[in-house]
């Protein structure tokens, strides 16, 4: 048993691999040789982790990945416990289906990070691709719990069909952010792209950097929403984020919608004063 398992990439990846066997909870009961023998798929070829990584340590749910793994997809899939740190960029579907534990990517991720997440904490220090926190293809729900905190910007469809949970974006969000969210909260400190919170049922899209509010939303009032203050205070304390007092204490313009659905959702646009 060791303090942590460290996977160090031997050489830059010249092909994409499916590395969904890298799951901290599963490593807790495996020695280094067993971890090294876990399967990895490169196209149709079945390989093992030891083909790509030096494995140090074993029998620990604390995992650190060293090296540029932006072509390694599915890392942390279904993780339910433990700690995962990626010491750089990571590929697509990072922490998809996550239900517990903590994942921290010091760089950026590909598409579908935190997809279908139901619990735990996923932090991405830089940018994320499309469909972060969204649902599996064809699924009626996106993330149903947990927290995703992204320091940079995200692509399209962020938080799509979210049922519950908190998605924070420190930069901008692409088109169709918070699409068809059922409930839950998406906070974007930068700008959001076209058609935000389309088909929103009861969710909240909070935007600080500018939003073009669709015609299917109606202005309700300008006020200080206590839940936004609570959520921002919580995020600032837990993730040591530097959020200006103006954002936390400020007033927001509340729009109710989307009128195309039950219309119980909202877009909250920060009022710069």
């Amino acid at each position, binding site marked *: 048993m060791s303090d942590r398992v460290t996977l160090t990439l031997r050489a830059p990846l010249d092909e994409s691999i499916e590395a969904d066997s890298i799951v901290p909870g599963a490593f807790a009961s495996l020695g280094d040789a067993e971890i090294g023998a876990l399967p990895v798929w490169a196209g149709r070829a079945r390989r093992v982790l030891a083909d790509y990584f030096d494995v140090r340590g074993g029998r620990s749910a604390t995992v650190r990945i060293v090296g540029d793994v932006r072509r390694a997809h599915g890392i942390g899939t279904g993780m339910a416990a433990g700690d995962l740190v990626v010491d750089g960029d990571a590929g697509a579907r990072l922490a998809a289906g996550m239900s517990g534990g903590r994942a921290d990517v010091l760089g950026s991720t590909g598409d579908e990070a935190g997809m279908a997440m139901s619990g735990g904490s996923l932090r991405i220090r830089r940018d994320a691709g499309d469909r972060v926190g969204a649902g599996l293809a064809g699924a009626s729900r996106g993330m149903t719990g947990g927290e995703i905190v992204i320091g940079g910007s995200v692509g399209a469809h962020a938080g799509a069909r979210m049922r*519950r*949970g908190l998605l924070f974006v420190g930069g901008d969000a692409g088109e169709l952010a918070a699409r068809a969210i059922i409930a839950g909260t998406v906070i974007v400190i930068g700008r959001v792209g076209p058609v935000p919170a389309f088909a929103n049922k*009861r969710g*909240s899209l909070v935007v600080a950097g500018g939003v073009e509010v669709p015609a299917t939303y109606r202005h309700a009032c300008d006020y200080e*929403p206590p*839940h936004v*203050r*609570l959520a921002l*205070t*919580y995020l600032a304390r837990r993730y040591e984020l530097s959020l200006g007092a103006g954002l936390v204490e400020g007033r927001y313009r509340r729009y109710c919608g989307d009128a195309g659905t039950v219309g119980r959702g909202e877009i909250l646009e920060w009022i710069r004063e």
Partner: protein
Amino acid sequence: MYVNGVFIDDTFAEAFPMRAARIVVTAVNARWAREAALKLTGFATSVIACKCEAAIERELEPRETPDARPGMSVLLFAMDTEGLGKRLVERIGQTVLTCPTTSCFDGLPEAEKRLTPGRSLRIFGDGFQGSKVVGRDRFWRVPVMDGECLLQESFGVAKGIGGGNFIILGADARSTLAAAEASVAAIASIEGVILPFPGGIARSGSKVGSRRYKSLAASTNDAYCPTLRPLTASSLPDDVDSVLEIVLDGLDEASIRRAMRAGIVAACLPGIRAITAGNYGGKLGPHHFPLRSILDGHADARALA
């Protein structure tokens, strides 16, 4: 035993189990947090007639509250969990929900046993309410005329202790009140303890039942009333003409012990003749606080000799 020349009676305070909640009220500023907390803790001196005992525990800085606003921490005690749940719904609903700018949070997040007053109060929103989960907790957004009232759904229940006490016997009313005030000031900084009576001080100490009126649950403690000295079996020394009581409720024995120690030492001022405590011979409750043991280390040298 003497402390600063004040005789400490060789007796104990007797206290009983209660159930407790800690409520954190925040508002746009300290004034409105206090307004809500004062109403929340109003008419809550004794379970005998108020169904609960409550008081402000302390003022909270913005860095201590969940939403980074000024706040007040309140402790509320009832005889059982069911009663505590009812009081929380009544009091939060009528005093915090109604007060401008306030939000209401649980102050016992580690407690396993939970009550859900927020879930009960959410229906004031008449279907327009909504909820948010932040961290591990659910919060209800109840629409009100100044915006929204944010209420945490669940509140922790602690096994608290009610009825800790000590009694200050003074030469006259002025010096006795000054000593009681000094006690209250000394206890104010101790966490986990409240003094539910007005200004933290009770003048109408009671005994169980009544010698004349059978329907009364409690009546005046005639043994400590100076005006009745020749008319009853008085417990008062000849040089005592005024008596005040400090009643304490706390989250645990250690908090009450700390508070009694600080309060009694602070009360040992000129004009005070003795400190004693109320008990029922050990029949009322399992929590006993012997005064001399609590004050161990504070006794005057001459008394130890």
